[in-house]
């Protein structure tokens, strides 16, 4: 018999963290309670654009309890700066508290502190701000209008950024084309909605000169660095802790002004300061997403080959550039990924981010890709319709099949399963496609099938950020693995887990390398004191890079354990296998030594270590992403049924075929995909952050801002194809965001198929569906 290690990677391990999260034992930001705390409530701008004339705090004088008020005048020049240093970007800053001018409703104007959160809120209400209104830039059309002044002084127009990307010979493609198809597509502005809102607690202890900041963030190290730089403090004396974080979805993958301000206030007042964002603040003034408009022109040959694509990409990025992904993040990403999974070699894109008097846009699950894929995949259907081809056949004709593939912008795609996924979805949906066809004879009940096929660049490496000059600057993830004297293991992980299941998957990865049970591994994350410097969790990188780093570090320890075991059993190091908590002689499993015995020898009874071996079982590894990342792919499909007289739509079926390379844990993968799909359904059907003409927000609570709920969500079927990538240690590609990328496109395509109309924008609320189906009621 041979000793073989039963694989943990790929096993359906139930999430360890769920015991804590589901039993009420988790500790979220509001659970951080320190004695003597001052509670912060913000006075926020009530006009979208105005010059501050006066901040009247007179009402606080006889309020009957102590209060502290800080305004833009008190904070010096502290601000958020998120600039990309190239000539096409115009410079902007957001003061932590507005100075002189407010630029969106909800912008913090004053910070009011009291010893009780209710009192802080009461006190904030008594601060009156007088504004001289300034002209509002409310829409992208107004931002294009040269007669309306830009919202920043000295700007030459209302664009944060305008740039081009190109590759190949577009003129030639245009000249060869038998069909030229031009369309405009739009995605609405959304809020990103984690279940837990944001929040910050900060405390400065003069004894050890330590500033401790708790924040509901996805990137504690970056928060630490920004605070250190902005407040001019030694980074060694700052500790940032992300406690349990109740969802982030990219929204908490930024450094926010509140994080810096609360830290500053704690130092200033010498007391712990706590700010817990409420839902209205979150919806109005944390971060918005999407709000894209794309005009695309495709050049297609006689036989249905895409020859080239021209794209004009506009994004309403709101009032400020956010750190670290900036106002260029969304528009640039859309331009970069627009070529998608298709094989063509001529492309030209212009992208721009408009500055308007709205809440800033930032990264939200999928980051521009849901919008890009919406346009790309709506366009594929519109082309297929116009040239009379079946939409799946049209995609199969154009999809990339040979790897590695260098795309029109010079990005190299690692192997994927684009054609197989399309073929798979065609089989799975055969009956639905036939039923949709049959429903065409009905003017009252229509069914439709729509698909979206996409690639997702994941696990971006440092070169990708350097090329774009994004302030994130780098993309590595670090992990430190330490075996304890009793053989249990602690992993200090540079990622922060807020729903990804990393406490389980990272333990699985280390368990395989170390030959121990995953239950004996404690994954610590979200604390800059116990985790090595890293960029945090975002960009679908936890599995490929975090998992890779844990694997590499664990292998170094495994190596040392094998040397030690070989030494103790008088065997050859390469003949040792680690599994089940023991080190075996591979060909003679009767001979073994317990790993915990080895650990004790390595850490305590070090007198018997082999000649020259250094005590300790500890290793750290930092893994950067591959130059162009690794490309995951998926096909999403929606089947819808529409009641034409009322516009009521039912999502009957949602199917995902996904390929994220090596699957670390199928339960986690399915959960990530399903959660993402639900958010994508929200984008497609419900979630819309609405402003009126004066940029006053209209959807400021869950009564108006509609989230998808269980009754609207069909059972989401997930099929897997595994094409491991050679570019990461475990063959894993990223998958955290993919679920949210396809649904808007798939659902819009299904509506288009059902009603036999072109669908050019979301959200597809009942009202929109009803208007789109007018022709079937004989009204148009």
């Amino acid at each position, binding site marked *: 018999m041979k000793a073989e290690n039963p694989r943990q990677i790929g096993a359906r391990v139930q999430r360890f963290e769920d015991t804590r999260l589901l039993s009420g034992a988790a500790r979220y930001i509001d659970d951080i309670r320190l004695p003597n705390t001052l509670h912060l409530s913000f006075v926020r701008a009530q006009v979208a654009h105005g010059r501050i004339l006066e901040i009247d705090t007179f009402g606080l004088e006889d309020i009957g309890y102590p209060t502290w008020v800080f305004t833009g005048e008190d904070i010096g020049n502290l601000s958020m700066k998120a600039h990309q240093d190239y000539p096409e970007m115009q410079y902007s800053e957001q003061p932590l508290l507005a100075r002189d001018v407010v630029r969106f409703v909800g912008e913090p104007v004053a910070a009011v502190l009291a010893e009780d959160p209710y009192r802080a809120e009461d006190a904030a209400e008594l601060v009156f701000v007088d504004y001289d209104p300034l002209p509002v830039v409310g829409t992208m059309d107004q931002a294009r209008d040269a007669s309306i002044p830009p919202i920043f002084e000295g700007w030459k127009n209302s664009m944060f950024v305008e740039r081009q990307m190109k590759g190949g010979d577009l003129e030639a493609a245009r000249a060869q084309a038998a069909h030229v198809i031009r369309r405009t597509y739009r995605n609405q502005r959304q809020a990103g909605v984690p279940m837990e809102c944001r929040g910050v607690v900060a405390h400065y202890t003069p004894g050890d000169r330590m500033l401790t900041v708790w924040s509901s963030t996805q990137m504690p190290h970056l928060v630490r660095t920004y605070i250190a730089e902005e407040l001019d403090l030694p980074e060694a004396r700052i500790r940032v802790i992300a406690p349990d974080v109740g969802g982030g979805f990219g929204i908490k993958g930024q450094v926010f002004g509140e994080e810096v301000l609360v830290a500053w206030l704690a130092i200033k007042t010498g007391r712990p300061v706590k700010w817990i964002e409420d839902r209205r603040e979150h919806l109005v003034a944390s971060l918005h997403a999407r709000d894209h408009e794309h005009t695309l022109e495709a050049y297609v040959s006689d036989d249905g080959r895409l020859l080239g694509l021209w794209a004009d990409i506009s994004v309403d990025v709101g009032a400020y550039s956010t750190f670290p992904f900036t106002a260029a993040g969304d528009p640039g990403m859309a331009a970069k990924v627009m070529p998608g999974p298709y094989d063509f070699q001529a492309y030209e894109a212009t992208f721009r981010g408009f500055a308007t008097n709205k809440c800033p846009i930032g990264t939200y699950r999928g980051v521009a890709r849901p919008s890009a894929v919406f346009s790309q995949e709506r366009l594929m259907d519109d082309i297929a319709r116009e040239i009379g081809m079946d939409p799946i056949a049209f995609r199969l004709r154009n999809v990339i099949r040979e790897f590695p593939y260098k795309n029109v912008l010079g990005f190299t795609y690692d192997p994927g399963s684009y054609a197989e996924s399309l073929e798979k979805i065609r089989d799975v949906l055969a009956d639905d496609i036939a039923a949709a066809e049959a429903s065409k004879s009905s003017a009252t009940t229509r069914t439709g099938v729509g698909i979206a096929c996409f690639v997702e660049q994941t696990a971006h490496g440092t070169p990708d950020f350097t090329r774009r000059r994004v302030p994130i600057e780098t993309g590595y993830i670090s992990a430190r693995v330490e075996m304890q004297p009793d053989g249990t293991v602690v992993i200090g992980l540079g990622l922060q887990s807020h729903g990804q299941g990393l406490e389980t998957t990272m333990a699985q990865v280390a368990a395989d390398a170390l030959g121990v049970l995953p239950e004996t591994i404690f994954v610590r994350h979200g604390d800059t004191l116990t985790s090595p410097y890293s960029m945090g969790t975002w960009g679908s990188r936890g599995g490929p890079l975090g998992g890779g780093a844990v694997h590499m570090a664990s292998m170094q320890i495994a190596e040392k354990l094998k040397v030690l075991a070989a030494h103790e059993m008088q065997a050859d190091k390469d003949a040792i296998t680690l599994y089940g908590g023991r080190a075996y002689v591979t060909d003679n499993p009767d001979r073994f030594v317990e790993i915990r015995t080895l650990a004790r020898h390595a850490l305590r009874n070090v007198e018997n270590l082999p000649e020259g071996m250094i005590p300790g079982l500890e290793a750290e590894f930092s893994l950067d992403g591959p130059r162009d990342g690794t490309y995951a792919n998926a096909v999403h499909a929606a089947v819808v049924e529409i009641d034409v007289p009322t516009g009521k739509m039912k999502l009957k079926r949602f199917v995902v075929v996904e390929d994220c390379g090596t699957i670390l844990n199928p339960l986690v993968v399915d959960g990530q995909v399903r959660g993402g799909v639900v958010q994508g359904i929200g984008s497609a059907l419900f979630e819309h952050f609405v402003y009126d003409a004066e940029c006053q927000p209209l*959807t400021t609570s869950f009564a108006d801002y509609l989230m998808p709920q269980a009754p609207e969500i069909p059972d989401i079927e997930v099929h897997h194809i595994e094409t491991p990538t050679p570019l990461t240690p475990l063959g894993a590609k990223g998958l955290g965001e993919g679920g949210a990328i396809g649904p808007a496109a798939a659902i819009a395509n299904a509506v288009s198929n059902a009603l036999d109309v072109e669908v050019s924008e979301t959200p597809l609320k009942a009202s929109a569906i009803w208007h789109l189906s007018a022709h079937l009621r004989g009204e148009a």
Partner: protein
Amino acid sequence: MRPSAFDYHKASTLDQALALLAEFGDDGRPLAGGQSLVPMMNLRLARPRHLVDINALPLDAIEIRGDALHIGALVRHERYFTDPLIAEHFPAFLEAVHWIGHPTIRRHGTMGGSVSHADPTAELPSVCVLHDALIVAASASGERRIPATEFFLNAYVTALEPGEMVTAVEFPLPSGPTSGAFMELGERVGDFAIAGIGVVLGHDGNTITSARIVCSGARLVPVRSADVEAFLVGRTLADPGAQEAGRIFSAAIDPVGDHAASAAYRKGLIKELTRRCIAHAAGKASA
């Protein structure tokens, strides 16, 4: 999202509640199920200085008194599902309750709270208007009955005076066989309606002898249509002219348009829901 300061008073008798409400006037508010009031307080859209908790009062009867069904102000929405008197006499009412919110909301929300809150899209105010119910309002100085059609003055505005509270709603019992239906459409399950239609048809054999119809969500208060009602009377259950009725109702209403739904869409919905609702009610009656 924390309420401004208030004092809480728990009333143990109706007289005590009315005395407290009289004392506080505009500064006082009854607290019933809290499903509308508490969110409004958290948003500081409502800032009562005094809350008078009426949950302990014996106002939760559903019973026939004389020729009306008496429903106490504290009857919770979920009770209607299982009460035989509702199913027997008011089928449109019963159908309407299915459209109210979610199980938790229906467990806590009350009749008195719903009519007093007077949300233009809410079901129970519509049901009251549809059935020509009387709202029983009591104050320290006595009791009065306000016809539902005069009770709802505007969105969130009723004929109640400061110091007054609803103790019951009385639904006149139908005098002969009736059928009814209620349909609405919201964005998601449990959402407030984009538009809703309720209909009650009295009939003698196959002939429709009386008709009432109401629309919620389209205007600031529930609206009836005398034209549609007159059109239906005298027609047959087999051919009630549902399509034409829908056309008449939708032509008569000038609905609100907002970011949630265009006015044209609401008009279209009124037409279609009216048609379906009448056809459904007529179908049930002739079955």
